[in-house]
């Protein structure tokens, strides 16, 4: 991996945004019309420029919470704010990267990265940034390639660049590395840290990989399912760059796993 030297960015002054989640409820209806409580009275304040992870068993509502922050979904009750402004609907200030890179297959790498600027009709003025971000994720030389020619890791880099070129205040990552092999995954985790440190964007990561959460995050939000709630928020006070073998790292990892396990047992006993 070629690590490009940090470059001065044209909007380097853009820092991360502050997310305020206040008393969020999200209730879905199942096919029989019965209520499914995906999230119940969730309160969360995410600091500007913070790297925060949401972990928990499947069905704990972590992805739902992320979708609410993107504005693609609306809460049944409660409100969400970015820097004090109420969130209603998607906005380029809140970038999104899925597990599936969801690149536009009809556009090549360059045009995919440029699509955010094109959609906002500012591509002409900011054309130079497209190459800058392709450089940032280390994909020079692949500008003309089409998504089906890329490996999973490369495609996810393109997705990352496509979200970042819009200078989002918050980047929402929904298991972005979930489909990658172990090596690419670790490489991409370091990339994420590097980009985050360089850009100062607020990062919100949904993952069920506890290692990943501990390796990347300032804080880890542990959630429990049915109804989805925040069980505990843990600070990760390990200095960066982090080592996966550091005793503190291992201790915290074990602690979180225990809590998740506990949550699972709790959940099972509920059914018995």
């Amino acid at each position: 991996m070629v690590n490009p030297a940090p470059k001065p960015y044209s909007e380097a002054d853009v820092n991360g945004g502050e997310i305020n989640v206040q008393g969020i409820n999200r209730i879905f209806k199942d096919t029989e019309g019965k209520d499914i409580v995906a999230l119940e009275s969730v309160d969360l304040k995410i600091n500007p420029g913070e790297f925060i992870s949401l972990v928990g068993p499947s069905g704990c509502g972590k992805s739902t919470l992320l979708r609410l922050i993107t504005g693609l979904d609306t809460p049944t009750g409660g409100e969400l704010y970015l820097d004090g402004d109420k969130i209603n609907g998607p906005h380029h200030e809140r970038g999104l990267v899925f597990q599936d890179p969801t690149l536009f297959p009809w556009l090549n790498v360059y045009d995919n990265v440029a699509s955010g600027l094109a959609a906002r009709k500012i591509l002409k003025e900011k054309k130079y940034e497209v190459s800058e971000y392709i450089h940032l994720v280390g994909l020079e030389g692949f500008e003309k390639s089409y998504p089906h020619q890329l490996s999973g890791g490369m495609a996810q880099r393109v997705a990352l660049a496509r979200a970042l070129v819009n200078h989002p205040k918050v980047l929402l990552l929904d298991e972005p590395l979930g489909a990658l092999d172990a090596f690419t995954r670790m490489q991409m985790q370091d990339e994420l840290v590097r980009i985050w440190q360089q850009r100062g964007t607020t990062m919100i990561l949904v993952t069920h990989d506890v290692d990943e959460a501990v390796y990347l995050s300032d804080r880890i939000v542990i959630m429990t399912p049915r109804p989805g709630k925040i069980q505990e928020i843990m600070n990760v006070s390990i200095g960066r760059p982090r080592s996966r073998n550091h005793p503190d790292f291992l201790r915290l990892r074990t602690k979180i796993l225990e809590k998740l396990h506990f949550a699972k047992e709790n959940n099972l006993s509920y059914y018995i």
Partner: protein
Amino acid sequence: MSSQAANIEESTSLSPALSEPAIKNKKILDKRIVLILPLIALITDLILHLSLPNKQSFTTTKVYPSLLKAFLAAYLLVLILSFFIKPLFTKLIERAPLLTAVFLFLELWDIVTLKLKLLPLPYFPGPDKVLNSLTADWQLLGVSVLYSLRLLVVGYAIGSILGLTAGILMGWSKKWNYWIGPLLKVIGPIPATAWIPIAMTIFPTSFWASVFLITLAVWFPVTMMTSSGIANVRNAFFEVARTLGADRKYLIFRVAVPAAFPMIFIGLFMGLGASFLTLIVSEMLGVKAGLGWYINWAQGWAEYSKVYAALIVIGVIFSSLITLLFKIKDRVLIWQRGLIKW
């Protein structure tokens, strides 16, 4: 007896040692022999055509033998070039059997018609007669081609624009789907040619009546495939585009339409086929020009050689149009894997 057995033994014992390079050699020889086959076929064509007496009572011309000679010259030229250009050589080896078959077919045609008169006249003229009509009547055929193309282009353009518009509206909005959907379901399956009696009375000229018919024929498949293509675009594409700051116009024209293009193309292709059919039928029934009219007119005079000539022209033009459409598709769909081949 014993010496024979010894001989056999000897030959069998020798053969394994010989077999491998021998087979290899033979294979290469076989491959090259293929290249001579079209030549043999063409020369036999020529000899048979010039030497056998004619049974059909047409006056023969030099058109067919000239064509054969032209083929011969062209083939020889390509053959010589292929010894210097490697890709041409492999391509020629691949195509040689097919060319041979085509030339043999010409020979068969010549023999069963002109030479032996096995098939009744005037329905089955020989190749010389058909070629003669093609060259002698080229002006009228040319004008007919222009008339047909004008009708086809206008009808196809209007039909596909309307089809794309209706398809996008239906695929994008439930409301439009509610109102246009039933219309499409009822009107669409009616073959456009069934409207001929009505179209001919409603429209002031047979030209516009035919444009209407072709438009109708193209509109149905294009609308159908466009709307289902757009309705089936993965929602994730729209979600990502919205988080990138896309407005509705971008979502429709820069996300939905390109994502649906593989389906839209199938609609355009089906529409093209339908437009060919409708064009020829409406020219046969109402329009006083064009290739369909030409066929009808030639049949009226029992000049079947002209009918065949027109069929050849139609084949060449329609096939070229489909090729053109596929070329455009390959350009637009460069991002797609597994293209439909034409």
